[in-house]
């Protein structure tokens, strides 16, 4: 991910649940408690960039300030729904950068995911991505699908998938344009 990649920045702005391990004086504003203290064990939704920094602790040889949890977009309910039928889940409503969020979290150390769960999550994500990509390709080549029954599906695409749709649609369009241009010349 590049420094200037707007999608990377937006991914980092998505929130993850964090649990504070210590009482921090004066940090209550994160929880809407102006001027107060952040109590130990309180749960706050923080953006990834902040949560990641706070959860890093090895460097200071102390307990970490917060532990990260799994955002609801990647929770068991969603993963079960994706296993059942990847095509009907509205990923955009869950997280606008769903896949990026998932890979970002898998990069980080998250307390309540173990190895097996991690593998399972990646498997589900891969299967979901493939199943949806096939539908995206169909929709991108089929103008009527975009307006009719396909509209709901397309609205539920996450940002990665939107770019995929755009790529497929644009290349089909440019070929059509080339064919039409040849006909016009005649």
């Amino acid at each position, binding site marked *: 991910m590049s420094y200037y990649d707007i999608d990377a920045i937006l991914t980092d702005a998505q929130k993850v649940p964090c649990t504070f391990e210590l009482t921090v004086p004066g940090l209550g504003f994160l929880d809407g408690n102006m001027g107060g203290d952040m109590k130990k064990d309180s749960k706050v939704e923080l953006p990834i960039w902040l949560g990641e920094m706070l959860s890093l602790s090895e460097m200071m040889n102390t307990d970490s300030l917060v532990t990260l949890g799994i955002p609801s977009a990647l929770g068991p309910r969603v993963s079960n729904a994706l296993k059942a039928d990847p095509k009907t889940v509205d990923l955009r409503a869950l997280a606008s950068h769903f896949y*990026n969020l*998932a890979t970002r979290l*898998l990069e980080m150390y998250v307390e309540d995911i173990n190895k097996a769960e991690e593998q399972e999550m990646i498997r589900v994500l891969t299967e979901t*991505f493939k199943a949806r*990509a*096939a539908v995206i*390709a169909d929709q991108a*080549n089929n103008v009527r699908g975009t307006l009719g029954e396909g509209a709901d599906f397309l609205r539920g695409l996450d940002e990665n998938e939107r770019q*995929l749709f755009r790529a*497929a649609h644009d290349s089909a369009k440019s070929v059509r344009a080339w064919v039409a241009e040849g006909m016009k010349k005649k």
Partner: protein
Amino acid sequence: MALPLPAGLTPPEIAFLCEMELVTVIPRQRLEGLDLLGGRTPPLIPPQRANLPLWLALLLKRQRRANILPPPWLHPSALLTILELEHAGQSAPPRLPPAPPGSLPISPPFLPSSTAAAPRDALPYHWLELGEILLEAASDDFEDPDGVRRLMRDLREVRMASMRKGVGMFDAQGGFNMTGFGGMEVGEGRAFIGGVIDGLRKIGAARERSGDGDQDDQDNGFPSTADDYDDDEMDM
């Protein structure tokens, strides 16, 4: 990316490359052989057929100095056979004409795959571009241009559908087999297929980091090292 152009070739560029293909013309006027970069063209003597590069043939056709003989695979009956083949064998790859035995050149611009002597049951690499260009510039040389046009469209739909169907099977061999797809089809599918592979790679990258690289290579099919990822991510 600073360049506004997408990766790969645009359709007009692919069509430009296609103009190097040899086609058969029936000249209406005499013309001595021309010394071109690609070699000397055969002298044109009216009733005799000659093989010329497509661009030259189009030029002569436009000036009404020659008629273009459509390649045998552009005949409606041949197209119909190919279309049936595509329909029947769902996964049967679209086929390229076989290289003539003992010949040195084996790739399209040098293979006479679009001349009158081309095999009639196989589509060459530039079938879509060549067909469209000929239908546009020399439709009066076809027996049934509308029928050919319709069959070309059907064929294109079927082949694009089979390409899209391949997306679901990405994992098996860890890549996407595009053998037999024509230039324009590759160009059209490039952005999408590249995007899917890239997305799968990113999801798989997290798996690599989680430590069980060996086992994952088998079911994801993208064996790669952490170094590769670093390199890739630099230019994204």
